[in-house]
Every structure is written in structure tokens, then in C-alpha cells.
């Protein structure tokens, strides 16, 4: 393996040291110079967490071989402000609350800095365009754009510097904007996420994942991988000393596949080695013999008799069935003047937090097995791990590192167990950082759902009965499926007061990627069906969509179909506010189509169009490079 002698300037300091040929500028900055403010979110140029200036040009350092930066002048997020200080832009990000999880923020600050360097008077359209290469999953971008505009105005003297100050200390936190305490560490790149952390003697883990969806594992031969120089240990399910199994509700998932693999991407074995390349090479030496089993990829097919069974404890493949009955549904339909039946489908969705899963584990001087990771559920993880590794609870410690976006996707203990086992086996600290591809293939998704809705209504829009059946693909393991099915059933009919309901939600095992927690936790799928269905029914009855909701909405004092008494209900106020803010033109929405009068109003969000800088023709060249 060749190395390159690098000589360059980084944040004003001369740097001279070798780089490995495989290194991208990103790796050189992070691994050689420990400048971890520059993040890796995707490694493919899509997300912008790795943006840096190279000779004054903003580039994505994951797309630049380190050699290209030889002799160059590099500026990273750590070098923007004087140590201990914040640039106007960083202060503006702090002021507007533009940083949430913070993982995209160093890249965003770099892109925003670049945008205002290129055009100090950039308008909102141009700012959006110039930040187009940077993705954020928390903010919805509004606060970020607000920050860039604020900084621009301060830098141009249109606003005083005091505009960047925080709000005065109010008498109450409630109703006042409060600046985030952790923002300065995020806008400067100082905050260390798990993948940024290093320890002396730290090993690097790589995971062998299943290429097949459903198979028996006949054998795993790790001898060749274990014998490789630089490999400290190889672990499989055989290394689990205690009672294997984790999950949020049912503990049906082993730390690594145990005799049987149930989805593509499931962990089979893991290697801890002196560096990532060695660990990766060792994966190639592990020999696994599979005996394929029939697999099932559709939830309804998995419910049919004769379908392949995934878990012995659930011969019907049902993770959880939640039935709710209220009133007399048949009588309600008989009383209806219109019955509408329709089915709805939602797809699996990846959380795509900008920070891929990462963790660092070690066994401390007192023999405490310690795992640092952005876990959203450390106490539960600690209890589960203690059982799995057969240690008393006081010998297991979880430290929650900053979560670079979770959205429910980091509730599952899918890799922390492997890290703990490898640290115990090797006696050394071990770190695992997922690639984006690994994060997508192996971690939970939002439950895809198929919902059949039958609703009976009177001509005035009053709902007389609802029959709601939801079949959700839970994938290969239970994770949060049970809770998601409960929540979906509780919220299935929306905030509407309905006398007669019959609800069934089913979470089903299949050989797909497991489904788990994701923002709304089952409510989104149900609401999509409910609200779509109400719109369809309003159309059929010639009613205004707001009207049909007002007729049926719960009011203060109502009871839900799970018998929860609601003290105060603000739905009426919310509907009123939405109607007013949108300038809604009353009447059934199906009647007007494209000639509505309430489109294109001031305050409506415009579609994004590129080319603001071409239209304003600001981008004048000062640096012609004619051959």
C-alpha cells in the first residue's frame, strides 16, 4: 500500500505528514488530524456533512482523494472563528435555533459561509440553491435559511450586531424563545459524536452481514480471519455468554444470527482489528454455509396458512394483534346513508438521520462493560445487555453520546451488543461506525401498512360506523412493532367522535428488514388513511372538507374509543386556524380542480426553482482561466 507525503495548510497551520493512498481528504482530516468537525454522513457526496474549503472553493471532502489536497490550503469548520469565538453566521445559527441534532450543522455552516462569500447579498432563492448540496433531517431548513439571512444582513450592516444577541431573560421559559445551550458546540464542530471518539489502542469493527433473506446457518468458519495479523478477535453468536435476545417489547433478536438468518443485512459475525481495512479484509475470510429456507416478503402472505414461519414462538407469524370494539358496527352501517370502502398503502421509510450508527465499547479497570452510543433507550439497553452478557447490572454501563438524529431509529440495540462482546473478548476498546449503506440495509424502517377502511355516513357528514383493518409488515424481528400496533389502533380513527368502531391492527413477521419506531409511532399510517378517507367521503357527499371534520370532531369532554376522557379538545381551534391561514375557499374540494381561488396567495410556499443566480446574473467572473 503506497502512501503520499502530504504538505498542506490546514486552518492556517502548516501540516506535513503521510496519507494512505486510500484516504479521501475527509479521512485525512478526521483520522490523521483529528479534525472531527468535518463529518461523514454518506460518503457519496449526497449529504454535505463533510464540506470544507480547498483553496477557497467549497467541496465535499468525501469526494476528494487526499492527494488532490496536497499543497492546498484547507479551511474546516474548526478554523472559521478564532478559538473560543463564533463567526456572525455561527452566532446566527445559535440565535435562530438552526442546530438541532447538530450533525449536519458543521457542513451547513460551511455551505452558508461559502454562499455568503460567493455572494454577500444573496437572496433567499440563491441561498437555498447554494445550500442545495447539504441535507438536514431535523429542521425542515426554515431556521437554517433564517440564520443565513440574519447573518447576511448583519454582515452587510443592514442589521446591527445586537440582532445576533439572544432574547432577554424572560420571566418564564414558556412562551419565550430560549437559545439552545448546546448550539455553540454544534456550530463550531466541537461536539464529539460516537464516531468521532477515539481511545488509545482502539480497534475497529466491521460486520459480516447476511446476503440471504431466510436460511439456516450450517456453519461459520472464522479460523482464517482470526489468524490474520492485525485481527484481534472475531465474534459470532457462540460468544454470547448469557441469554441472547433483544427487542423493545419481545426479545426475539439475537445479537448476531443464531443458527438462522431472517433478513438480508442481518449480522452474522464481526471482526475487531487494528484498522478498518484489516477488519474489512478479514470479513472476506469468514466462510458461512447457508441452507436457504422459503422466505415470505408480504405481510398478508405471511398471515396465510402454510406460510414460512419465522419464529417458533409465533406459528401464525403475528407479532401483535390489537382488536378494539365499540358500539354496534353493523347497526351503524345499517343506519348509514353512504358507505365508502377504500384501501390505503404506505411504504417503508428510512429515518436517514445524518449520523449513521456508531459506538465505542470498552471494559474499564473495574471490569465494567461500557458502551458509548447514540442510543435512544440506554436504560433498557443496559438491562438487556446485562442478561445477554451474563453480568450483574452494576458491571454494565451505557453512556449516551450525542444523537445525530434518531427519530426512533436509534431505539434498537442492534450493534451495541457486538461492541460489548468484542471489547470483552479482545480486552481493548472497539469502535464501529456504520456506512450509510449499512445503516440503510440493516436498521429498522417505518412500518409499511395496508389499511382497509369502511365508513358509514349520514348525508350531513356524520359518521355512523367505522371498520378499520391494518396489516403492518414488521419485518424479521419484533423491535417496536407491538407498541406501534397499539398506537395505530388507539389513533386509528383520528380525533373524531364515532359511536361504532371495529378496529384491528396486525403486526406481522416477514423476511423483510425489520420495522421499528419512527416519528408518530404508527399514527402517521392511520392518519393518512383516515384523513384521505374523510376527503373522499366529503367529495361524495358534496361537503366542504373542513365541514365534515367539524361535524365529527371530538369536543371537550368526549371519550375516545379506548375510553380515555378528554378534558379539553382544541381541534376546533386548529381547524379554524388552518382554514384562516390557508385562505381556504369553502365548498367541496372536488368541484373546482385547478381553478381554485386560494392558490398562489402571498405566504403560500413557492415551489423551488433553480437558477436564481442566472436570473439575477450576479455571478460575475473575476477568475477567468483561459487556456
Amino acid at each position, binding site marked *: 500500500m503506497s502512501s503520499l507525503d502530504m504538505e498542506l495548510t490546514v486552518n492556517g497551520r502548516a501540516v506535513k505528514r503521510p496519507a494512505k493512498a486510500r484516504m479521501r481528504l475527509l479521512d485525512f482530516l478526521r483520522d490523521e488530524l483529528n479534525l472531527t468537525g468535518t463529518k461523514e454522513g454518506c460518503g*457519496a457526496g449526497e449529504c*454535505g456533512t463533510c*464540506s470544507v474549503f480547498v483553496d477557497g*472553493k*467549497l467541496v465535499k471532502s468525501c469526494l476528494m482523494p487526499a*492527494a*488532490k489536497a*496536497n499543497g492546498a490550503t484547507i479551511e474546516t469548520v474548526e478554523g472559521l472563528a478564532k478559538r473560543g469565538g463564533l463567526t456572525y453566521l455561527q452566532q446566527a445559527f445559535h440565535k435562530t435555533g438552526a442546530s438541532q441534532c447538530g450533525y449536519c450543522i458543521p457542513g451547513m455552516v460551511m455551505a452558508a459561509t*461559502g454562499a455568503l462569500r460567493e455572494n454577500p447579498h444573496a437572496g433567499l432563492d440563491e441561498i437555498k440553491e447554494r445550500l442545495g448540496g447539504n441535507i438536514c433531517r431535523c429542521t425542515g431548513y426554515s431556521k437554517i435559511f433564517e440564520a443565513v439571512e440574519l447573518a447576511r444582513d448583519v454582515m452587510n450592516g443592514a442589521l446591527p450586531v445586537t440582532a445576533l444577541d439572544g432574547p432577554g431573560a424572560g420571566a418564564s421559559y414558556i412562551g419565550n424563545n430560549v437559545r439552545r445551550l448546546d448550539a455553540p458546540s454544534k456550530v463550531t464542530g466541537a461536539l464529539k459524536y460516537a464516531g468521532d471518539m477515539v481511545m488509545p489502542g482502539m480497534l475497529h469493527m466491521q460486520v459480516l452481514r447476511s446476503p440471504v433473506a431466510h436460511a439456516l446457518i450450517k456453519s461459520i468458519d472464522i479460523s482464517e480471519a482470526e489468524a490474520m495479523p492485525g485481527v484481534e478477535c472475531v465474534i459470532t453468536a457462540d460468544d454470547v455468554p448469557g441469554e441472547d435476545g433483544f427487542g423493545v417489547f419481545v426479545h426475539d433478536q439475537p445479537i448476531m444470527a443464531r443458527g438462522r438468518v431472517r433478513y438480508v443485512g442481518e449480522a452474522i459475525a464481526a471482526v475487531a482489528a487494528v484498522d478498518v481495512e484489516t477488519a474489512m479484509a478479514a470479513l472476506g475470510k469468514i466462510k458461512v454455509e447457508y441452507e436457504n429456507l422459503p422466505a415470505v416478503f408480504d405481510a398478508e402472505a405471511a398471515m396465510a396458512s402454510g406460510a414460512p414461519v419465522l419464529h417458533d414462538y409465533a406459528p401464525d407469524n403475528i407479532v401483535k394483534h390489537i382488536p378494539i370494539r365499540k358500539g354496534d358496527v353493523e347497526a351503524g352501517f345499517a343506519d348509514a346513508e353512504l358507505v365508502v370502502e377504500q384501501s390505503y398503502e404506505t411504504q417503508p421509510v428510512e429515518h436517514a438521520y445524518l449520523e449513521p450508527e456508531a459506538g465505542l465499547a470498552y471494559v474499564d479497570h473495574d471490569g465494567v462493560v461500557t458502551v458509548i452510543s447514540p442510543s435512544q433507550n440506554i436504560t433498557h439497553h443496559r438491562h438487556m445487555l446485562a442478561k445477554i452478557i451474563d453480568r450483574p447490572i452494576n458491571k454494565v454501563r451505557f453512556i449516551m453520546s450525542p444523537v445525530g438524529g434518531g427519530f426512533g431509529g436509534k431505539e434498537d440495540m442492534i450493534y451495541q451488543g457486538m461492541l460489548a462482546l468484542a471489547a470483552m473478548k479482545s480486552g481493548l476498546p472497539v469502535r464501529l461506525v456504520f456506512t450509510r449503506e449499512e445503516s440503510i440495509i440493516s436498521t429498522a424502517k417505518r412500518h409499511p401498512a395496508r389499511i382497509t377502511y369502511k365508513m358509514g355516513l349520514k348525508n350531513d357528514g356524520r359518521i355512523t360506523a367505522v371498520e378499520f383493518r391494518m396489516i403492518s409488515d414488521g419485518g424479521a424481528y419484533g423491535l417496536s412493532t407491538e407498541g406501534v400496533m397499539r398506537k395505530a389502533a388507539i389513533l386509528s380513527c383520528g380525533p373524531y367522535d364515532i359511536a361504532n368502531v371495529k378496529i384491528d391492527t396486525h403486526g406481522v413477521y416477514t423476511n423483510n428488514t425489520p420495522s421499528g419506531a419512527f416519528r408518530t409511532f404508527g399514527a402517521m399510517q392511520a392518519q393518512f388513511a383516515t384523513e384521505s378517507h374523510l376527503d373522499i367521503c366529503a367529495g361524495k357527499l358534496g361537503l366542504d372538507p373542513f365541514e365534515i371534520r367539524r361535524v365529527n370532531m371530538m369536543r371537550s369532554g368526549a371519550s375516545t374509543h379506548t375510553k380515555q376522557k378528554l378534558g379539553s379538545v382544541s381541534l376546533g381551534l386548529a381547524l379554524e386556524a388552518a382554514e384562516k391561514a390557508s385562505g381556504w375557499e369553502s365548498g367541496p374540494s372536488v368541484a373546482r380542480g385547478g381553478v381554485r381561488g386560494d392558490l398562489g396567495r402571498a405566504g403560500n410556499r413557492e415551489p423551488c426553482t433553480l437558477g436564481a443566480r*442566472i436570473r439575477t446574473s450576479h455571478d460575475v467572473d473575476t477568475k477567468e482561466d483561459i487556456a
Partner: protein
Amino acid sequence: MLNCDQYLMPETLEEALAQWVGAPEGSRLLAGGTDILPWAREGRAGHMHLPAIIDISRVKELHGYDVVDGRVRLGANLVFQRFLTSESLRHHLPCMPHCAVWFADDQIREQATLVGNIVNASPAADGTPAIFAMNGTVEIARLDGGSVARRSVAIGDFITGPGGTTLEAGEILTAVACDSMAGYGGAFEKVGQRRSLVISVVCAVGLVKLSPDKKTFADVRLAMGGIGPVPIRLDAVEAFLKGQPVSRKSILAAVKTAGDLVRSRTRREYRSEVIRGFIERAVEDALADCGVALLPPEMKEAVHVVT
């Protein structure tokens, strides 16, 4: 992960050609590198360990551009961002700022080269249809007994299919030359899943020159990508429009002469619907770039939906 035994950065074309012709089997040549790094990942090519990478980005002879006798010559190291930032290139290649702004993002455009986009010969390449519309040729160099031998090939003959070109072993694509389109209005249309950082499902480029009284089409250039294995030039539509009065009617009639253009294996129906709207839009946006707006901007989305 992209690894290699040797990472070479030649500084002259001769050096680059010598290294390239002598490189072990499986070596790769790159300029910006923005395509190969994502390619060397799981799910695509996977981990790659190459004998040598020859990085031509420091070969000065391949930098920049020049304009001679109505032809614009763009060096292999010219990055996409220059089509937005260079006043001279904007003047001579009026479709390219529009093409560039839809290509990746500002940061990738600072590294990604037009020539790299062309030589990779992806059916979805954004740069190739534009060069095709401007009667582009590629310039190719190789070593012949110690000196540099050169040849030129029309772009339509150079690209043979997805990933396929007539480039031979030891050859390097050094530049692209095309007509100066000064005085034309330019346009670029693209449909993908997001507005930054997406690969085109369909893309179209339009260039329009008006008669002095701005009443008739003096010249029209149209090309499309993403609808078959290679980009296509819309000769029939171009020929029909030449000499026609500038009107929506002419454009709608011209669209009908396009025929069935889709040769892609997937999403054929969708693509053929997009094409018709895109031809209209490419011509109208190019007209708008000449200062003739047939439609107010807010009407465009509505009108170009195929009914």
C-alpha cells in the same frame, strides 16, 4: 473504499499518456473523481483496489478553455461550475449555465468535469446532450512513438451505449470542442426526484436563435438524454421549426414531428409523456432567454402537463 497501489499525478500530457499506456490492467484515469468514489461503495462496485490511479487534474495543458473561429474548446479539467461563473463561457454557451445549475450542487461542480461526465457515457449524463446539440467533437490523444498523436470524433459517434465509447487503450480524452452559440438563447430541463443532487430521469437542452425582427426561428438546437442508451439529437423538430413564426402553435406542431423517441427499457410511458412537455419547455425557455416570453412563468407548469 477506493484503494490503490499507486496514486499518480502527472503534470504534463506526455507524462500522463506515458503513465496511462504503461499502467497495469485495471488501473483508472480520473479528473474530478466525483463519480468513481461513490462507485467504489457497497451496492455498486464495492471495495475497489486498483493497481494505479492516474489523476490528470494537475495537467496544465488540460485546464481552461479557448474560443477560436467560432468553436469553443473546453479542456478536460474544466469543471462544471465554470459554466456558471465564467462570463465568457456564459456568452458562448448560453445553455450551459442552465445545465450546470441542475447538475449535482455547487460543491460537486467545483470538482466534477464536463469531460468526465461525457467519457463515463452514462445515458443520464447531463452534459452530453448539450454538447451534442452544439455539434460537439471530442479530442483524443495517445502516444505514438514518443510523440503525442491526436484525433477528433463527433460526439454522436464517440458514445456507443451505456458506459461505452470508441476510446481505445492508452488514449485520453483531452478536450471537447463545440460551436459558439453566442446570440442564442439557452435552456436546460431536467426531471429527477429532487432538485439538487439527482440523476436525470430525462433531460433536455434547447438553443434558439431568432431572426433579426424576432418573429421567426432562425435556428433551433434540441437534444435529450435519459431516454435511451445514448443521447439523441431532435433533428426533425429542429428542421421543422427553422423558419417558422415564433408562436405556441409552431412549437406544438413541432412536438408532433418528434415521433416515438424513447429507447429506455424502463418507465417508457412516463418518459414519453415527459419528452413532449420538455420539448415545448426547452424551446420556450430558450425563447425566454432571448427575451421573448410566450408564457408567463406561473403558467408553465400548468400548460406543459400533457393532457
